[in-house]
């Protein structure tokens, strides 16, 4: 068990370090193979760990920080939650690595790319497996750094570098919450081990737990791009597409949800915290779904869909349904990776065109991309019987099972978000892949013929599509036999109401109808002939609601008005008035005055010895006279 764990963690780091140090001297093929094989090695180690897994185990690999009461060993905790996430992360990232070989075929920065990608996976695995909070924080920050470096991978364009910085700074706001929470936890509990802290929840007053929970929620908001800290994720699309896939599917944005799931035994007892988590999740799910409705950039649509889906996971955590959250997290990883990689194929094939209204007819041009993409879209929209349907439905069921006005309202919001999800997903699908009408001259032409894709990029889509479609079997609803994940993760769940099979079936059919009606609405607006009309209309600048949604509810502008501009003004006041005006100016004036005084005094230095002698004599006389005056 220990060896397997060490391998899981060490292999990605080894790959990263090896590529950083030696990558430049090795041929391209070797770099690619190393980068991919370490991740797959890590996956097989995780498989081995699953095979030999019997009970949650804590493995101490080495000592790290030790002083007085503070003990932070490098120890990893393998429990069902961590294990299932490890498997998912290594598998999905392994596929993304393979895909990157094709995607980065012509990029000269491939060594940096693969090294960072490996480091990214390693940091995420540390985060997932960490047994104590500082180690988790190490992974947390490692993930943040890698996302910053990879979002701004093509840093020569100012826009990309700015997006990287934005991601870094916005997530940093959340990280402050985590840092404070860690220190506070040590102060209250005297230990930083996650398993121990989770066990000692009842020893401290509820207010403290609530405060800790809200701090952790702040951290999760930053990392998982939840409202109000969601602004960085759509901009993060500036990075290469495999990076987006990895950030969204496996390594970055799920970290916040994971943190809350990990600490749930501690913070879950506070109704305020769970309520806040659920509200954040539901609101974000709704917010991002509306934004995606009007967005034109293919990758930004997917980014908003991620924000929305992570919102669902948060909602599940807020309802105490850890299984449902994990289930959706894993299924989401499959279909979101699939959608992003498919989008990467499309964008590459169209010579880096990202505007969906300038695409079209791709169903015939790229059939190898269309069918997997369709599978991903079905999953995202939650059309039965795909994995996405089951996972999203388990969340909705959990919300319904909580009962009460509050959660009832959240259920309605979530249901509406499901509907919107289906609409925007198929809007995207119809617009991107739908046939262009030959007679329609309003449609802008493609930029020349479709560029051929490397074979590996299309092959990778197939396993992901299959997994997305059938991943429902990981956790079937109760009436179809018990779910695998349900029994695997059983000890983690909060006590929730159990529903009868009939209710569950009823809820599922409601969800299915909602999703299908969303599909129908999308078809009504964007199917066949209407597609061309919409495209023609999209040529005009957006107005009203569309503009509002396209700008992401103007949240960016709001933040710029509320925080960035006052900050800049304050900085300019501090700089021009305080620093230059007061400090520098006073120093300058003092220097000038001293210089003048010196020049005045310098006139005495005439160089005439007799004058010096005279002043010496006068001074001595004065001194002697004064002494005489004092003494006599």
């Amino acid at each position, binding site marked *: 068990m220990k060896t397997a764990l060490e391998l899981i963690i060490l292999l990605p780091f080894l790959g990263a370090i090896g590529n950083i140090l030696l990558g430049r001297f090795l041929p391209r093929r070797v770099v690619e193979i190393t980068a991919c094989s370490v991740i797959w090695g890590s996956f097989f180690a995780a498989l081995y760990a699953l095979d030999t897994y019997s009970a949650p185990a804590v493995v101490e690999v080495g000592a790290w920080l030790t002083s007085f009461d503070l003990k932070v060993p490098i120890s990893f905790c393998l429990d069902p939650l961590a294990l299932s996430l490890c498997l998912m992360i290594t598998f999905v990232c392994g596929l993304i690595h393979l895909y990157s070989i094709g995607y980065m075929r012509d990029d000269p920065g491939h060594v940096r790319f693969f090294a960072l990608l490996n480091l990214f996976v390693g940091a995420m695995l540390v985060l997932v497996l960490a047994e104590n909070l500082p180690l988790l924080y190490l992974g947390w920050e490692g993930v943040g750094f890698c996302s910053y470096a990879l979002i701004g991978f093509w840093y020569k364009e100012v826009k990309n570098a700015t997006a990287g910085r934005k991601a870094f700074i916005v997530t940093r706001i959340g990280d402050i919450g985590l840092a404070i929470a860690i220190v506070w936890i040590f102060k209250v509990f005297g230990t930083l081990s996650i398993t121990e802290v989770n066990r000692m929840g009842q020893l401290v007053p509820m207010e403290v737990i609530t405060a800790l929970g809200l701090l952790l929620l702040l951290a999760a908001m930053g990392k998982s791009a939840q409202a109000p800290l969601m602004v960085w994720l759509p901009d993060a699309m500036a990075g290469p597409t495999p990076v987006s896939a990895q950030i969204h599917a496996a390594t970055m944005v799920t970290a916040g949800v994971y943190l809350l799931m990990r600490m749930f035994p501690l913070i879950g007892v506070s109704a305020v915290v769970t309520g806040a988590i659920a509200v954040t999740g539901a609101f974000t799910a709704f917010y991002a779904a509306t934004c995606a409705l009007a967005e034109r950039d293919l990758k930004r649509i997917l980014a908003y869909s991620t924000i929305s889906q992570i919102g669902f996971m948060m909602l599940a955590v807020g309802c105490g349904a850890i299984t449902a959250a994990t289930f959706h997290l894993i299924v989401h990883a499959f279909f979101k990776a699939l959608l992003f990689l498919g989008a990467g194929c499309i964008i590459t094939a169209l010579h880096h065109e990202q505007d969906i209204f300038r695409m079209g007819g791709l169903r015939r041009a790229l059939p190898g991309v269309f069918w997997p993409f369709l599978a991903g879209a079905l999953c995202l929209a939650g059309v039965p019987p795909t994995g996405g349907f089951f996972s999203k439905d388990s969340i909705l069921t959990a919300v319904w099972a909580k009962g009460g006005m509050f959660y009832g309202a959240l259920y309605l919001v979530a249901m509406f978000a499901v509907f919107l999800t289906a609409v925007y997903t198929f809007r995207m699908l119809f617009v991107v892949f739908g046939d262009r009408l030959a007679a329609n001259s309003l449609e802008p032409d493609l930029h020349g013929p479709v560029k051929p894709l490397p074979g590996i990029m299309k092959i990778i889509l197939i396993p992901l599509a299959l997994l997305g479609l059938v991943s429902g079997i990981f956790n079937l609803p109760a009436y179809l036999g018990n779910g695998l994940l349900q029994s695997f993760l059983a000890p983690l769940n909060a006590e929730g109401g159990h529903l009868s099979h009939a209710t569950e079936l009823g809820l599922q059919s409601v969800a299915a109808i909602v999703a299908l009606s969303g599909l129908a609405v999308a078809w009504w607006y964007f199917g066949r002939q209407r597609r061309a009309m919409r495209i023609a209309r999209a040529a005009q600048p957006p107005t009203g609601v569309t503009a509002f949604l396209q700008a992401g509810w103007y949240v960016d502008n709001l933040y710029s008005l509320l925080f960035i501009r006052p900050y800049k003004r304050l900085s300019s006041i501090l700089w021009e008035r305080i620093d230059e005006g007061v400090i520098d100016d006073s120093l300058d004036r003092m220097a000038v005055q001293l210089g003048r005084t010196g020049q005045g005094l310098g006139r005495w*230095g005439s*160089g005439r010895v*007799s004058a010096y*002698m*005279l002043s010496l*004599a006068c001074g001595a006389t004065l001194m002697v006279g004064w002494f005489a005056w004092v003494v006599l």
Partner: protein
Amino acid sequence: MIVPLTHLLILASILFALGLLCVLIWRSNVIMMLIGIEIMLNAAMLVFVAGSNHWGMADGQVFALMIMAMTSAEVSLALAMVVYLHRRKKTVNVDEFRELRDQ
């Protein structure tokens, strides 16, 4: 002891004042300035010797001898400089030598 200490001190003060006046006034000749310094040193020596006599301690006389030795060294050095200065500018007026002044 016939001469009281007070008298000696008064004499030394007069000598010192004369030496100082010489230095301050006779600046057209550096040699006269040196002589003025010598006179002031002699006044100081006189005070040492008088004090030593008055309190019956030899320290003052030792200091007087020290000053004598130092003075002879100083004068030889100073006179060498005077010769050198004279050679440079054909004058011994100290106010002519102002090269070290800050421009």
